[in-house]
């Protein structure tokens, strides 16, 4: 399936682009991360420390073991610092 992957804050800086469209058969977010990290050094650097990575699937916060299901948009970003 086709998924829009979004990056924010320093994950965006490390990957080098704010978003990309990917073809994936990944079952979970973690599987998708494994595929993305294997793409190149920039992606690998972004996902080097997964304790510092948060994820939203279709704009809902989820854990890394969440199923991708029919996700259309998956976002990766560091812990949030709003307020």
């Amino acid at each position, binding site marked *: 399936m086709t998924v829009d992957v*979004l990056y*924010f*804050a*320093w994950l965006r800086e490390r990957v080098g682009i704010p978003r990309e469209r990917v073809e994936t058969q990944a079952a979970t977010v973690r599987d998708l991360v494994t595929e993305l990290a294997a793409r190149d050094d920039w992606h690998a650097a972004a996902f080097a420390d997964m304790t510092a990575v948060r994820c*939203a699937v279709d*704009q809902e*916060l989820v854990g890394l073991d969440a199923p991708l299901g029919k996700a259309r948009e998956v*976002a990766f*970003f*560091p*812990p*949030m*610092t*709003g*307020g």
Partner: protein
Amino acid sequence: MRARVQTQPFDPAAELEGFGAGAGAIVTFTGVVRDDTGSMAALELEHYPGMTERAMEGHGDTAARRFDLIDWRIVHRHGRLRVGEPIMMVATAARHRQAAFQAADFLMDWLKSRAPFWKREIGQDGSARWVAAKDSDEAALDRWQAMPR
């Protein structure tokens, strides 16, 4: 919409015009850009367009149900902000004092660690540093889980 994300500055006082009719207690919190180091030129806030508005609206509704609010507002800026400018504000209106205070505190705890915003400090020398999340913010949010509703 009772939750709003914008780049333009806002006036906390103006946001309260006509807010909370019928309430006995109104609490507001305003966060202001502060320069702790004396070397900051600006604060930049990145956000997740679409998710930010939805999440803020959804969480405001959760707070309204949990604390029986008469009304609430969240205004949050993104983009480049200068020292002394308001970053965001939360307003809650309830019949009683404690609900208004608790709801404002609850919304702030959520905004600090669950709303998709990321702060970056821009130094006077042009340097940029992402603000690290605090464990204490995460812990602050957790205490609401344990609390009887």
